[in-house]
C-alpha cells in the first residue's frame, strides 16, 4: 500500500481493528466493511454503542450504510476530490486554526514546516501537471519535488522500473538537515504548498465533481473535525474501493495527508485501517510473491536505463539512505542472501548478489496477461488464484491461458482457471474448441488450513499461526510440500550443470527437514530461516537489530525477525489475548508494535495528549518509553533528544520523530519522493469516465497512469456516448473474491446463488426493466448477462448538472461451481496506477440493456 508508505513510511494499516472501539468517529470510505469484514465491524458497533459517529461514504447504500449514522453517496471515482475538499475545509476551518493541538502536532510530526525546492510548481500553475513532467514517457522527473538545499538527487521515485511499494526512505542523502519554517509562513514550505494546492477543492467544487450536495459535505467535514483533536480521534477504514483506481495510491495518500493534518495518526482510535481481502495478503506483500520486491520491502535489483544495480555496491548506493531505519539496508539484504545462498554467498562474490534475477520491465499481474497471450510467457503456476475470473479483462486472461504451453493449477476445487479449456463462455458459445487449445493443464489438489500448519498475516500486520489437525485427503498436499519436492527434483535435474542457470539453482539452500508419511517439510524450520540466525552456530537472532552486513547472520525477512526469538518460541503461536493491545496474541511486525508511529500518541515532550487517548508515554524516572504498546522508536530515546552532527540511521532522528522509516522522521504531507504521479494527491477522473474534470479541465485524467491499450484491450473515450453508465464492481458477504472458496461451498452458494447487477429504479424506469429481469452489460472488452436487482440502494447522482447513473456488479461469479453467473471482469480493462500497478475496477463505464445474450454464454447451468 504505497499510499501509506509514501507519507508514513510503512505500507501497512497504521492501527488495529480493536482500536476502532476507542474511536469517536469512524469514516468508512472506499470500503464496505460490514459486508466484507463483518467480524472487524464488531469494533465499529462497539464504538457506536459508546457514542461514536459512523459515516459511510460510498456510491451504494450497502449493509454498512444501514448501520451508519451518515451515508454520503458519491460518484464512483470521485473520492480524491472529496478528500481534497476535506483537506481544504480543515485547513480553513475555525477549529483547526484555533486549537493549538493541530499546529503542534503538524509542526513537530509532519514535514509541514519543511522548505521545498523553490522550482517546484503544482497543477494549479501548470494546467493540471506538476513540474518535471516528461510527456512522451507519461512520467515525472522529481528533482523539483525535493527538499530545498539537498545536493544528492533522489533516486527510486523517478525510475521506470515499476515498484509496487514506494521507497520514501530513498530521499537521497539528507546532506543537510531539512530547512524548516516553524511559523509555516514561508511560501515554499510544505504547509503553504498544501494549502495552495487544495484551495480549489471547495465544497461547491466537491459537489460538481462527486455529486455530494454542499450541505451534506459540510456535515461530513464538521463531524470529522469535531471528532479530531487532543481528546478525540477519528479513524478511517478503507479497502480496495480506494485502491482500484488509476489514482488509487494517491487517494489513500490523500487520506494519510488528512489524518496527519488532523493529528489522528499513531493514536488510539485514530489512524488508517486498510481492510485487506485475503487471509495473508499482507503477509504476501511482507514476504512478497511480487515480482519487484524482496522480503521486507527490499527492492529487487534493477537493470533499466535509469537504474542499473550491476553490483551489490551499486544497489546499496541507490537503496540505502543515511538516515532513518533503512540505514541498515546492507545488513538486511546480505543476511537475506546468506539465508538463500548459504555457503555459496561469500564476501568475494558479493554474497551471491548476481544470483538474484534483475528486473527491467513491468512483470506485474496485469502485464503477465498480455505476456501469456503474446507467447513471452510459456508456463504458469496458479496457486490459490483464479485469473480466469479475477483477472482484469478476463476474456484476454483466458486467451492468455489458452496460449500457454503448460499450466499448473493448485486448488481445492476445479476453478474456472483449470476448466477454461472446455467450460469458458467462449468455448460454450462454440467460438473456441478444446481441440484448438494447446495448453497442457495439471490440476493438483491442494491442502487447506487445518490440513497444514503455517502462519497468516492479517489486515493489521498480525501474524497468527494455524495448527495442523489432520493430513490432507488423497493426493491433496500443501504448497510447502509441492514447492519443496519440486525444488528437490529440479536441483536433481540440474545436477552438474555448470552454466549460470545451473549454478543459480545449485547455490540455493534447500535442505529443509521433512516429517510424517507425506514427507512434509517442517514448517517451523522455515520460520527459523525467516526469523534469522547467526551463521556460525545457527543460533536464532532476537530481532533485526542483531543482523549484520558481514555475512555472519542470515535472515529470510528482516521485518519478521523476532517472530522466533529463541528455540521453541514461535510468537505467531502466542495465544493470550487481552482487552487492550493484546501484545501476547500473535506477533505484529515490526517488533510486535500494534499501533504504528505510536510516538505520536504522546506530545513532543512525551506526555499523553490526553488521559482519554493515552497509549505510550515517556517515563523520565525509568528513562524509557512505556505504556500499553511496544514503542515504535528506540525505547530509551528521550523526547528532547537532538541528533549530533553527522549522526546516521535512527540516531539522526530527534526525540520527537514518530515516523522512523522516513529519512527525516516526519510524516509527509508533501511526498518529495516515493510517488510517481505527484507529491500531492490530485483528483484525476477514472480512465473511463462519462464526465470531464472541472478541477483540471486541461488534464482530466491521470497523466502518469500506465496504459496497456491494444486491440484486445480497448478503452472507452472520455464521455463515450455508447457507454453512458458508471460501472463499479464489489464483493458480497456471502462470497469470497473470485469465488474459488465460496461458490463451490453449498452453504454459501445458496445464499447468493447467481450473479446479478444492481441498478436504481430511476435507470430501470428509463430502460423498462423490472426487478429480476435479465439484462446485458457491455464494454469494448466484453459483454455479460445478469439478473437485474432493481433497488433504491443504487441512485443516480447530479454531477455538474448531468444525471449520472451507476451500475453495480459483484465480481465473484463465474462458470464453475454451484453459484454461477457472468464474469464481471470480462468487462474491465487493463490499465494501471503508476505506483501500485493496480487496475481500475471500481469505476469504469459500460452500457446496459434489457434482454439476454444470444450466445447464452454466461447463463447459469441451473436453467
Amino acid at each position, binding site marked *: 500500500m504505497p499510499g501509506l508508505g509514501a507519507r508514513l513510511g510503512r505500507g501497512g494499516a497504521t492501527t488495529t481493528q480493536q482500536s476502532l472501539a476507542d474511536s469517536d468517529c469512524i469514516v468508512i470510505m472506499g470500503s464496505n466493511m460490514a459486508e466484507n469484514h463483518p467480524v472487524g465491524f464488531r469494533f465499529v458497533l462497539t464504538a457506536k454503542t459508546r457514542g461514536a459517529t459512523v459515516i459511510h461514504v460510498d456510491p451504494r447504500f450497502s449493509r454498512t450504510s444501514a448501520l451508519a449514522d451518515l451515508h454520503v453517496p458519491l460518484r464512483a471515482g470521485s473520492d480524491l476530490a472529496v478528500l481534497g475538499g476535506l483537506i481544504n475545509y480543515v485547513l480553513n476551518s475555525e477549529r483547526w486554526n484555533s486549537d493549538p493541538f493541530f499546529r503542534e502536532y503538524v509542526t513537530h510530526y509532519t514535514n509541514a514546516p519543511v522548505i521545498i525546492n523553490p522550482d517546484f510548481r503544482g497543477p494549479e500553475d501548470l494546467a493540471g501537471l506538476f513540474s518535471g513532467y516528461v510527456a512522451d514517457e507519461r512520467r515525472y522527473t522529481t528533482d523539483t519535488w525535493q527538499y530545498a538545499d539537498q545536493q544528492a538527487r533522489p533516486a527510486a521515485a523517478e525510475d521506470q522500473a515499476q515498484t509496487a511499494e514506494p521507497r520514501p526512505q530513498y530521499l537521497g542523502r539528507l546532506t543537510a538537515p531539512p530547512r524548516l519554517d516553524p511559523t509555516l509562513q514561508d511560501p515554499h514550505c510544505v504547509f503553504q504548498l498544501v494549502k495552495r494546492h487544495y484551495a480549489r477543492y471547495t465544497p461547491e467544487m466537491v459537489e460538481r465533481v462527486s455529486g455530494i450536495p454542499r450541505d451534506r459535505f459540510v456535515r461530513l467535514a464538521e463531524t470529522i473535525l469535531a471528532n479530531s483533536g487532543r481528546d478525540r480521534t477519528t479513524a478511517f477504514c478503507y479497502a480496495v474501493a480506494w485502491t482500484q483506481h488509476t489514482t488509487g495510491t494517491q487517494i489513500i495518500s490523500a487520506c494519510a495527508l488528512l489524518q496527519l493534518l488532523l493529528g489522528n495518526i499513531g493514536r488510539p482510535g485514530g489512524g488508517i485501517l486498510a481492510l485487506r481481502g485475503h487471509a495473508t495478503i499482507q503477509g504476501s506483500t511482507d514476504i512478497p510473491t511480487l515480482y519487484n520486491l524482496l522480503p521486507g520491502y527490499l527492492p529487487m535489483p534493477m537493470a533499466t536505463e535509469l537504474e542499473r544495480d550491476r553490483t551489490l555496491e551499486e544497489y546499496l548506493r541507490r537503496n540505502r539512505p543515511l538516515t532513518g531505519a533503512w540505514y541498515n539496508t546492507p545488513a538486511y539484504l546480505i543476511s537475506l542472501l546468506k539465508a538463500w545462498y548459504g555457503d555459496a554467498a561469500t564476501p568475494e562474490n558479493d554474497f551471491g548478489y548476481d544470483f538474484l534475477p534483475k528486473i527491467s520491465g513491468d512483470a506485474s499481474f496485469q502485464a503477465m496477461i498480455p505476456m501469456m497471450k503474446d507467447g513471452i510467457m510459456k508456463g504458469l503456476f496458479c496457486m490459490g488464484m483464479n485469473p480466469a475470473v479475477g483477472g482484469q479483462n478476463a476474456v484476454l486472461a483466458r486467451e492468455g491461458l489458452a496460449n500457454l504451453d503448460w499450466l499448473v493449477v493448485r486448488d481445492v476445487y476445479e476453478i474456472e482457471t483449470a476448466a477454461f479449456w472446455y467450460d469458458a463462455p467462449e468455448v460454450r458459445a462454440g467460438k473456441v474448441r478444446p481441440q484448438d487449445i494447446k495448453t497442457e493443464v495439471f490440476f493438483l489438489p491442494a491442502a487447506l488450513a487445518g490440513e497444514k500448519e503455517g502462519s497468516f498475516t492479517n489486515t493489521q500486520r498480525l501474524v497468527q499461526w494455524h495448527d495442523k489437525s489432520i493430513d490432507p485427503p488423497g493426493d491433496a498436499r500443501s504448497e510447502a510440500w509441492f514447492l519443496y519436492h519440486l525444488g528437490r527434483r529440479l536441483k536433481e535435474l540440474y545436477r552438474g550443470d555448470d552454466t549460470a542457470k545451473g549454478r543459480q539453482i545449485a547455490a540455493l539452500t534447500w535442505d529443509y527437514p521433512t516429517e510424517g508419511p507425506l514427507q512434509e517439510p517442517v514448517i517451523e524450520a522455515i520460520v527459523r530461516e525467516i526469523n534469522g540466525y547467526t551463521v556460525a552456530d545457527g543460533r536464532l537472532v532476537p530481532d533485526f537489530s542483531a543482523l549484520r552486513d558481514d555475512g555472519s547472520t542470515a535472515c529470510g525477512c528482516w521485518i519478521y525477525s523476532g517472530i522466533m526469538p529463541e528455540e521453541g518460541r514461535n510468537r505467531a503461536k502466542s495465544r493470550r489475548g487481552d482487552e487492550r493491545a493484546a501484545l501476547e496474541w500473535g506477533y505484529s511486525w515490526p517488533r510486535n508494535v500494534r499501533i504504528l508511529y505510536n510516538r505520536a500518541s504522546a506530545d513532543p515532550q512525551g506526555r499523553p495528549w490526553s488521559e482519554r487517548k493515552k497509549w505510550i508515554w515517556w517515563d523520565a524516572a525509568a528513562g524509557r518509553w512505556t505504556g500499553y504498546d511496544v514503542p515504535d522508536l528506540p525505547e530509551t530515546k528521550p523526547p528532547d533528544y537532538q541528533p549530533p552532527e553527522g549522526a546516521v540511521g535512527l540516531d539522526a532522528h530527534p526525540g520527537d520523530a514518530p515516523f522512523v522509516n522516513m529519512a527525516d522522521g516526519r510524516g509527509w504531507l508533501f511526498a518529495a519522493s516515493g510517488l510517481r504521479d505527484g507529491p500531492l494527491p490530485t483528483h484525476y477522473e477514472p480512465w473511463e469516465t462519462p464526465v470531464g474534470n472541472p478541477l483540471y479541465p486541461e488534464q482530466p485524467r491521470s497523466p502518469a497512469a500506465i496504459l496497456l491499450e491494444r486491440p484486445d484491450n480497448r478503452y472507452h473515450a472520455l464521455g463515450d456516448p455508447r457507454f453512458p453508465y458508471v460501472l463499479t464492481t464489489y464483493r458480497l458477504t456471502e462470497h469470497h473474491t473470485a469465488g474459488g472458496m465460496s461458490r463451490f461451498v453449498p452453504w454459501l452458494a445458496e445464499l447468493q446463488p447467481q450473479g446479478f447487477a444492481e441498478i436504481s*429504479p*430511476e435507470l*430501470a*424506469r428509463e*430502460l*423498462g*426493466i*423490472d*426487478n*429480476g*429481469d435479465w439484462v446485458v452489460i457491455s464494454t469494448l472488452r466484453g459483454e455479460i448477462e445478469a439478473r437485474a*436487482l*432493481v*433497488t*433504491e440502494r443504487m441512485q443516480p447522482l447530479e454531477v455538474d448538472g448531468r444525471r449520472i447513473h451507476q451500475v453495480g456488479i459483484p465480481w465473484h461469479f463465474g462458470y464453475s461451481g454451484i453459484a454461477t453467473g457472468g464474469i464481471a471482469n470480462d468487462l474491465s480493462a487493463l490499465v494501471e496506477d503508476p505506483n501500485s500497478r493496480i487496475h481500475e475496477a471500481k469505476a469504469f463505464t459500460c452500457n446496459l440493456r434489457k434482454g439476454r445474450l444470444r450466445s447464452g454464454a454466461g447463463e447459469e447451468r441451473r*436453467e
Partner: protein
Amino acid sequence: MTAYERRWETRRGGGRSAGDEARESYYGLPVIHRAPWRWEIPTYFFLGGIAGASYVVAAIADLVGGREERPIVRVGRYVSLATLIPSPLLLIRDLGRPERFHHMLRIFKVRSPMSVGTWGLTVFGAFVTLSALIQAAEDGLLDRFPPLARLLRGLPRRLIAALGAGPALFVSGYTGVLLAATAVPFWTKNYLLMGPLFVASALSNASAAISLILSLAGRGDHRALRKLERLHWITSAGEALLLAAVRRNSGPTIARPLNEGRLGQVYRRGVLGAGLGLPMLLGAPGAWLGRRLPRGVTALAALLTLIGGALLRYLIVTAGHRSADDPQATFELTRARDR
C-alpha cells in the same frame, strides 16, 4: 424455472424495485405454513364423516324407530362399516412415516384434536365392527358359525347402539375442531362453525348414502325413505346456513378463496348449487309434502348430495391452504387490537 422467474415473466412496466415488492407484505410470501396434507385427508373427512353419521342415523333409527325403520338401521350399519374401513388406511397413507402410525397411540393429549380424534376413531371402530357383526348375525350371514351368531344375537343391541352413538357423533364432527385449532386463517376464524358444519354435512351425506342404497335396492320402504329425505333436507339446510355464516364471518380478506377463481366456482356451483340446493329442491316434495318420488329422483338427489359433501371437504381444506398462503389473511387475523 423457479417460481420467482415465473412471477417475473408476468410483470410489465419497468422500475419495479425489490423495495416495491416488499411494500404490501414480505414479497407476498406466506406468514404461516399451510398444512402438508394431500388428497387423503379431505377424502377421510368425507368418508369418516359418513361413517360416524350413518352409525348415528342407524342407532337413532334403532332406538326411536320401529319395524319400518329397520332397513335404515341395517343399511346404516353396513355403510358405517364400509366407509370406516378405508379411513385409517387413508390417514396412515398420508403420514410422512407410515410405519410409525402406532406412535399416535403413544399418548393421549386432550388439547390435541388429532390425538383425541385418533383415540375416538379407535373406540368408534370397535362399536362399528360390533354393531355390524350383530347386524350380520341378524341377517343370517354368520350362520356358518352358529355359536358366534348366537352370541352376537344375544348382545344388548340397542344399548351398544346408544353407547356407540357418542363416539360416532364425535367422529362425524371432530375433524372440524381439528381444523379450527390451527393458525390457518380460514379455519380458525370460523372455529365455532367448522365442527357444526362438518356434523351437518356428515349427517346429510349419511342419510343420502343410506337412501341411495335403499332406493337402488328398490325394496318397498318409501316410508323410511321419506323420513330419511326429511332428515337429509334438514341437515342440508343446516349445512347451507352454516356455509353462509362461514363466508360472512370470514370477512372479505379471509373469505377470498370462496369468492375467487376456480375454488369460488366449486363453492357456488358445486357445493351450494349441485350439492345442496338441487338435492333439496328435488327432495322437498318427498320430505315435506309426503309425495312419493320416483326412485331415480331420490337416487339422483342422494348422489348429488354425496358429490357435494366430497366437494365441501375439498373446498374447506383447499380454502384453508389458500388463506394460509395469503399473508394479508394472516395479518387480518392477527392485527394488533388491544385485547
